């Protein structure tokens, strides 16, 4: 290539760039003064078929409400970046209500931005807010999804032929352990000989490890699998390819596994977000702390897939109807962990909102695997 050609190309490139820059008008969309500007921030992609999609679906429901302007940012890490995103939404787009949705956004990031902006409301997903300790313009919302995993377990217990089911989990933290234990208890309520093999991948989004874990469960003769990672997509797709059945988590993954998807434990954030925003629009004070489960509409089940037998539907529906009445509990004594140690004494009953369950550090009898 001669120098002249190179130079000409350079000039053409510059000319093309300049022309496109000059010809296109700025595409700014100013908000109406009366609009409530609401910002959502996600730690992963909005279309991950999981944690972030569940929130983005809630945000989409908000978008359709009159008088609301929606701002969204995805893939924002739990670092200074999220502080800057929140501040930028406030300064450049005049947001007055923010939902930073990832657990790790709370401390120190959201708290620090909230202190700097006392007139802006912040609500965080995860149940960490404590009155007196955290600013009044912040708050928490969270759902008890363990009971939905219990229903997953009932369906899995009916479907499994090998009596071996699997759970792919990110980290052995209390929220995840609650799900593993609930899933196992549900399945063992159908057949006490069922065991759950658990695999911890070590982090919230490790697609390669999640696929490897699913394959190794399939190789070990496990025929129903569920998970608690940010995006269940890889687990569900891999399981479908291996001819396994899956119970979903976070959002509805039925599309990814038309044959093997049984049901799933889903968040119902649309409900929660709408009620916050209705309060904000009416000028009512927004609650600082809201939590709920199936009965309160914070959590829902995916519709049953084609592979779910009649007996499974019947039992799961009956238990669900009981749960909807409120006061149902899955963690009842006497209960042993998988090392044979008694963890809940006979006669003790923990409802899903029990504070004792929030520091869970055991795997119940029937789970194969270890925390440390």
């Amino acid at each position: 290539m001669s120098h002249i050609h190179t130079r000409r190309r350079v000039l053409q490139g510059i000319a093309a760039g300049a022309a496109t820059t000059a010809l296109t008008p700025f595409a700014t969309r100013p908000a109406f003064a009366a609009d409530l500007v609401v910002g959502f921030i996600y730690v992963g992609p909005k279309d991950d078929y999981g944690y972030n999609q569940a929130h983005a679906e809630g945000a989409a429901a908000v978008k359709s409400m009159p008088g609301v302007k929606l701002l969204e940012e995805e893939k924002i890490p739990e670092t200074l970046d999220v502080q800057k995103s929140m501040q930028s939404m406030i300064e450049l787009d005049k947001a007055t209500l923010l939902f930073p949705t990832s657990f790790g956004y709370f401390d120190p990031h959201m708290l620090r931005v909230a202190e700097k902006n006392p007139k802006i409301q912040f609500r965080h997903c995860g149940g960490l807010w404590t009155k007196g300790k955290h600013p009044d313009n912040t708050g928490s919302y969270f759902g008890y999804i363990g009971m939905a995993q219990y229903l997953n377990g009932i369906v899995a217990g009916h479907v499994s032929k090998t009596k071996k089911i699997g759970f792919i989990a990110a980290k052995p933290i209390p929220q995840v352990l609650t799900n593993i234990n609930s899933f196992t208890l549900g399945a063992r309520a159908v057949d006490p000989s069922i065991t759950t093999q658990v695999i911890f991948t070590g982090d919230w989004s490790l697609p390669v490890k999640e696929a490897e874990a699913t394959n190794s469960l399939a190789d070990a003769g496990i025929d129903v699998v569920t998970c608690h990672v940010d995006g269940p997509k890889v687990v569900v797709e891999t399981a479908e390819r291996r001819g396994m059945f899956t119970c979903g988590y976070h959002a509805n993954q039925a599309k990814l596994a038309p044959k093997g998807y049984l049901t799933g434990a889903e968040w119902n954030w649309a409900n929660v977000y709408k009620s916050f925003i209705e309060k904000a629009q009416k000028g009512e004070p927004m609650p600082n702390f809201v939590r709920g489960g199936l009965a309160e509409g914070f959590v829902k089940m995916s519709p049953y897939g084609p592979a779910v037998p009649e007996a499974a539907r019947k039992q799961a529906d009956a238990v669900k109807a009981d749960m909807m009445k409120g006061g149902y509990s899955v963690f009842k004594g006497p209960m042993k962990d998988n090392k044979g140690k008694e963890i809940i004494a006979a006669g003790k009953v923990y409802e899903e909102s029990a504070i004792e369950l929030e520091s869970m550090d055991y795997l119940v009898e029937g789970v194969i695997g270890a925390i440390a």
Partner: protein
Amino acid sequence: MNATSSGSAVAGPDRFYRLRRALEALLVPVIALALAAAAFSLFLLFLGKSPGAFFELVWRGAFGSWFSFQNTLERAAPLLLTALCVALPARLGLVIIGGEGALVLGGLAAAVVALPLARLSPPMVQLGMALAGMAVGAGWIAFVGWLRAVRGINETISSLLLAYVALAIFNHLVEGPLRDPTSLNKPSTANIGDVNMLAHLPGTDIHPGLALGIIACVALWILIERTSFGFACRVTGGNLRAAQLQGLPVTRLIMIACALGGACAGLAGMIEVAAVHGRANASLAAGYGYAGILIAFLARHNPLGIIPMAILLGGISAAGGLLQRRMGLPDATVVVLQGMIFLSILTSETIYGRLRWFQPREAK
């Protein structure tokens, strides 16, 4: 790399050679940037988005207001230090891409020493944290240098693999022995305490990592360009055999340069703990170590060149959120732009010394 010889040899017949060479060093990257922007405009047009609106938003989100500019500078801060971890060993011919490992372990060390030091005054605690972070980072990358110099192990591979080892050690310690028992659903070490957090730079909303990063860039530029130690490093990078024949202590030079680079990455980890998080947890592994590689290469391993490049990339990432909000572009758009800039600037490297206009001329 900078293979062109010094200008003095032709100073007589061609007085403007130095000027043209400076112009070359400025024009080549600027044109490369413009080309990347043009190519990216095509990509946007293909998506049906307006390039004009895009670059206007990049400007507004990165530099258009005092808030935006501070946003850019604060994002550039950790990148200054992690880029040095790549650039400094690169001057000796080593391609080290495992700065992320030194960063997380440096951050962990800083968080851990804060507890026993807690009785001291905050500046002493911060000094202790910085020294601990730098020492651990220095040791980690110096080990890579030692493997290279003494055992002949490829430093690119070993540093990358050691970064995974570092992360595994980090996760094990943070989720196990060093875990604060109250950090239930996000395992972390104990909080260093609000009094021990680094204060913002006066009159700004920017943490002092920016100042430390710029000081480190200037100091290491002086070291590498203006001292005999730096000259020995550059000789080693230019021709290892020649350096050995001259009797230069090559092994020691490599290990010192790696240690200095690692100390910078470790300091970046300490700053993340002491200025942002207040504790060590998985959020430290945010990819700053890997972004530093990009910046070091864009700066052609010149410590001073790192400053504008870190600000450029800091600015692009600062604008990322605004682009998502206003134009509905996915987060990956910014990554595509970064990739195009990277490719374009790296390709432009091959042009240096080839365009006749910039070359020394014979007297007619």
